[in-house]
Structures are given as structure tokens and as C-alpha cells.
């Protein structure tokens, strides 16, 4: 090592040592609970504000409703968990991409399958004038998880795998919106769900990704 760089390294060492202060170790369970709590609060708040779907009891007996809701719930769980885990250097979460993508694809396939098998292609609730409210519902439910995720990203300013963290947390925010509206919107047609629930989810993911890219510090 040259004399000049030795001097830089020793002055950097002195700077870092003098700057050292005790830190609160990032507690993954605590942050997972925080994110999960935010999702739950926003879904409950959305149900209270917009009202539960009138046919919720009937819907709970439908296999496709349970499957689609279950897949959305699993997607939220996995994206949120892996998004936070990806903040820890050295913990491998790359393979989890497959899980999150797989669950999302399964949800999509379930809807497309129902669409192909349904008698009426568009079904109830495709009219844009009526369905536009669904975009508003998905977006408003996603707001609280979006705020909490933004605060976490900003607080934990050093990201070792920013792309992964961004995409997982953006997926989490979008899927919470999609999960919440399952309990609010009475329309069951797959075309309606794909267009008026699915597209806002994708849009929410895209917008939030742009936001947290700006917020994160590297």
C-alpha cells in the first residue's frame, strides 16, 4: 500500500472510530410485525370506509374466492418478508423471487382460467363508469403500507441489494391493495378483477418502485 493511501486509510479509520455510536440492531420480527400491522390496519380501514361486500358470507363458500384471496395473502406475506430480509447483507433472498413470482402467476392463471371457462366473457361489473371506484379503493388501501415501507427504506438508508428490496416492497404494497379489495368489491367476474383490480395493482407496484428508488440512499 502506498504512503499516500496508507495515510487516507488511517485517517478514514480514525474518522470511523470517532463517529462510532451504539446502534439499535435491526429487529426483523419487529419490522415484519410493523409491516403486517400496517397492511391489516389499511385493509380494515378500507372495509370500514367503503363497506364490506354484501355477498361476503356467500363468497367465503366459493372455492375460487378462497383460492384467489389465499394467493394474494401469500403474495403479500412473501413480498413483505423477503423485502425486509433483503435489507440484511449476507442473507440470501434471490431464490425467493421465484416464490413471489410463482404465487403472482398462479393468481393470474386462476383468473384467466375462470375467464376462459365463464359463460359471459365480461360479466358483471366491467362498465368503466361503475368500475372506476375499484381503482380508487386499491390505491387508497395501498397508501398506509406505502408510507410505512417508505419510512423503513429511508431509515435503513444503506441498501446492499436495492433492486430486490425495491421490487419486493413495491409488490407488497400493490398486493395489499389487491387483497383489501377482495373484501369490498362485490363483482366476481374474472375480467373485472383482472382489469380493475389487477391493473391498479401493477400500476401501484410501478409507482411505488419509482418512489422508493428516489427515497433510498446508496
Amino acid at each position: 500500500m502506498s504512503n499516500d493511501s496508507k495515510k487516507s486509510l488511517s485517517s478514514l479509520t480514525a474518522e470511523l472510530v470517532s463517529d462510532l455510536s451504539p446502534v439499535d440492531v435491526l429487529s426483523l420480527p419487529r419490522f415484519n410485525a410493523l409491516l403486517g400491522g400496517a397492511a391489516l390496519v389499511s385493509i380494515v380501514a378500507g372495509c370500514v370506509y367503503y363497506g364490506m361486500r354484501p355477498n361476503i358470507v356467500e363468497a367465503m363458500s366459493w372455492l375460487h374466492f378462497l383460492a384467489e384471496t389465499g394467493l394474494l395473502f401469500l403474495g403479500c406475506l412473501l413480498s413483505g418478508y423477503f423485502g425486509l430480509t433483503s435489507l440484511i447483507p449476507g442473507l440470501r433472498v434471490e431464490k425467493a423471487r421465484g416464490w413471489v413470482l410463482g404465487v403472482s402467476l398462479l393468481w393470474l392463471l386462476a383468473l384467466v382460467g375462470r375467464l376462459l371457462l365463464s359463460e359471459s366473457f365480461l360479466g358483471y361489473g366491467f362498465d368503466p363508469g361503475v368500475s372506476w371506484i375499484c381503482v380508487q379503493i386499491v390505491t387508497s388501501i395501498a397508501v398506509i403500507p406505502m408510507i410505512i415501507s417508505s419510512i423503513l427504506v429511508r431509515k435503513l438508508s444503506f441498501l446492499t441489494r436495492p433492486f430486490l428490496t425495491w421490487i419486493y416492497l413495491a409488490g407488497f404494497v400493490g398486493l395489499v391493495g389487491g387483497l383489501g379489495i377482495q373484501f369490498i368489491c362485490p363483482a366476481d367476474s374474472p375480467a373485472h378483477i383482472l382489469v380493475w383490480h389487477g391493473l391498479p395493482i401493477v400500476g401501484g407496484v410501478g409507482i411505488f418502485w419509482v418512489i422508493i428508488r428516489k427515497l433510498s440512499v446508496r
Partner: protein
Amino acid sequence: MSFSDKESRLFSLMQAVQSGDRVAYEELIVSVVSILKPYFFKKLSDKYMIDDLIQDTLIGIHRSRQTFQSTQPFLPWMFSIAYRKYCDYCRKVTREQSGQASYGRELYVFQQGSELDERIELADFMGDVQDVLPLLPEKQRRVVVMMKLEGKSIKEVSSLLGMSGSAVRTAAHRGYKRLSELLTERGRLGCNFLLLFTNISIGSTLLYWLCVGEIVDV
């Protein structure tokens, strides 16, 4: 010391660092540097870049020390940060090389050439260099000016400035690197101003046409 002894020693030091122990931190930094040097040397041959990467990694470790979990080993955590810094460096080099297209040849000749003829040929380029030279840190600027514009040797520069030969080489290398960044930014800025000017011109023309068109119609 065996690998597991080294790992458990570093693990204990890191835990002490998280509680604010400065003596442990200094010892940890010394150990980390001794591990990182051969790690980066396998990936890069430029020792100045290796020094820079080591320093970047130390800063990264400092900024993310709250993410180290008591349930994970230290070395994978540290290498994950080091690897990300190396990836950032590779990305930066690729961006610089693609941005250098318009200045690559000139900068190469500027770095390598010592003949007045070559400098006369590069009159435009030299004009740009003179504009950005004041933006370099003083030590780097003085070395670049003495070596490249005044044609002095490393020995002459080191005796005039009271620096070692390797320190002069380091400063020259960093000065050229910073110079190429500044010249590339300047090139991009020029493009952006041109685009802005073009957009304003087109916009103004359209607005004028609309207004005049409106008046003529009336």
C-alpha cells in the same frame, strides 16, 4: 488461527462495535482490511482502485452496522457488502467508458502524450480541460498541470511538491479519473442544454402559430 476461530473473533468484535466499543472497532477494521485486500486483488489489478474499494467497503460496513444480526456469521455479511461495492464500481466504470466516447481518444492522448504537436491538435479538448481543471482538488490539479501541461517528470514533480513518487502517481491517476468524469458530465450537460433549447424553440413556435392562427381566424 483457524477459519472458525477467526469467524468467532470477528463476530464478537462486531457485536462489541454495535454497542459502541471503539477499541473493538479499530481492531475489527484492521482485520477487515487484511481480509479485503487479497479479496479485491483477485478481482482487480489496479492497487489504487483496490484502496478505494476497501475504503468504500469500510464506509458501507459503518453505515449498515445496525443490520448485522446475532443469528448470522460475520464474514458472509461483510463479503456481501464488499461484493456490492465491487458491483457498483464495475457499473460506474462501464458508464464512464460509454460516456467517454467523445473524449476517449483525446483523454488517452492527453494522458499518454507529451509532445506539443499532440496538444496543439487537441486545442478544442484542451480548452475544455482548462475550464474544468479548477474543479479538481488542489493536489491533483497541481500534479496534472505540472506533469501534463508543463511536461515535468514524476521525479521533478515530487521534489517540487515534497511528495513521494507513488503519491504523485496516485494523485495523477485520481486527477485523470476526476477529469474524465467532469468532461463527461460537461458533454452531457451540453446535450441537455441543446435539448432544452430545442424544446423551448419548438414550443414557442407552436404557441406563436396557435396565437397568430387564432388572431388571423378572428
